[in-house]
């Protein structure tokens, strides 16, 4: 999943929703797709899934890395 493509897809959907020649059935399907993408993006951006690590030792050629609690 790429943020860029997902965001431009949602933008495209929003545009289609505003167009008068989009049928109601089509609109509902588009809306559902857009909301699903937006929710997924929001979740991906807000989810705490980072790793915080720290380098041990001083040797610049060799870094031992461990998780920082």
């Amino acid at each position, binding site marked *: 999943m790429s943020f860029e493509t997902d965001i431009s897809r949602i933008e495209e959907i929003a545009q289609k929703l505003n167009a008068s020649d989009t049928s109601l059935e089509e609109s*509902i399907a588009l809306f559902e797709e857009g909301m699903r993408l937006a929710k997924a993006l929001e979740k991906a951006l807000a989810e705490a899934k980072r790793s915080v690590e720290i*380098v041990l030792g001083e040797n610049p050629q060799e870094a031992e890395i461990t998780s920082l609690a």
Partner: protein
Amino acid sequence: MDSLLQTELSVSDLTSLIKQTLEQGFYGLKVTGEISNFRPSSTGHWFFTLKDETCSISAVMFKGSTWKVDFTPQEGDKVTVTGSLDVYGARGTYQLKCESMEKSGFGQLLAMLEMRKRQYAALGYFDEKTKKPIPKRPLRVGVVTSPTGAALQDILNILGRRAPSLDILVLPATVQGESAAPSIANRILQANDLLLCDVLIVGRGGGSIEDLLPFSEECVIEAIHCSQIPIISAVGHEIDWALSDFVADLRAPTPSAAAELVSQGYMDYRNQVQNLYEQLQKSMQSRLLLAESKVKRFDTKAMQVRISNIISTKEYLLANAGNNLVIAQKQLLKSHDARVELAIRELQALSPLAILARGYTVVQNQEGKLVASKEQAEPGSMLTLTFADGKRKALVKE
């Protein structure tokens, strides 16, 4: 004995003269000495003695000035103060009223930093065109700072809140004292050698100018200059600076600000997604409203209104037509009456009674047959004569 003044003076007069002489004669002073007997008052003023090997002088610094001093003086600190003499008449004492205070040697330190700054500027180390762009949405940010400092906690908190998916690698360094500069430089080199991250924050929290000095040391400047990884310098508070600020690709006023800078791309994304979210909902809502308004035209109530409208129009037309019929019939009747009257009049004109009224009679024999000639009326027979007003019997004689 010669008298200075011809008049006799009160103590107040004399004190007032001394006050004038001292206060008008000793102003704009810059005095260096050692702090002794430092007594901060609960109201925020500082009382202390400034001394050197042989002399001492009372000194005071009022609250209005102490807040500008970025350190709390300690016993034995060598400081340079500026101020003027102040006479306290009630006790007959004089003291140094301080306006500003800095650690002695601060001036030399600043001069040294300025010189070093010029030297590196001349080498092109600070040129804008050598600055690398900071990645908008880095995947892993390295932080060269003290692992126990408040700066690291601030950075972790802010990144956790703004970009919780961004990985962080702490490169612990000593940030104060003799070993600090090589320690910082070493971590920058290590991050580069092993390509540990795609952006580096190098910094520490606030402190005195001496505390921040390692970030202005030559080995740190060189390490930042040579770094392939873009570096954000984040040293001290807003007002503090170090030479690392100039050579780094970006200067952040504080470590917290550096964290905000590296997470801005993610925040922009979040805002954008939020906006799109609202946009989708708004568009869908107006789409549904449109559909609803179309359907609404066919609901029971609206239909009732429309149908009753149609009915009342028809009823009106019907009533109108009925009315017209009645009028037409009346007119028709009227014209018939006229014709009947005319016919009656014509009939009356032709009526035999009318002829009889003019003197004629109808003659009938006994059988009732009309007698129109004398041949039919034989003498001796009885005839019936009909007049306009009645009948008579007549006997034919000859």
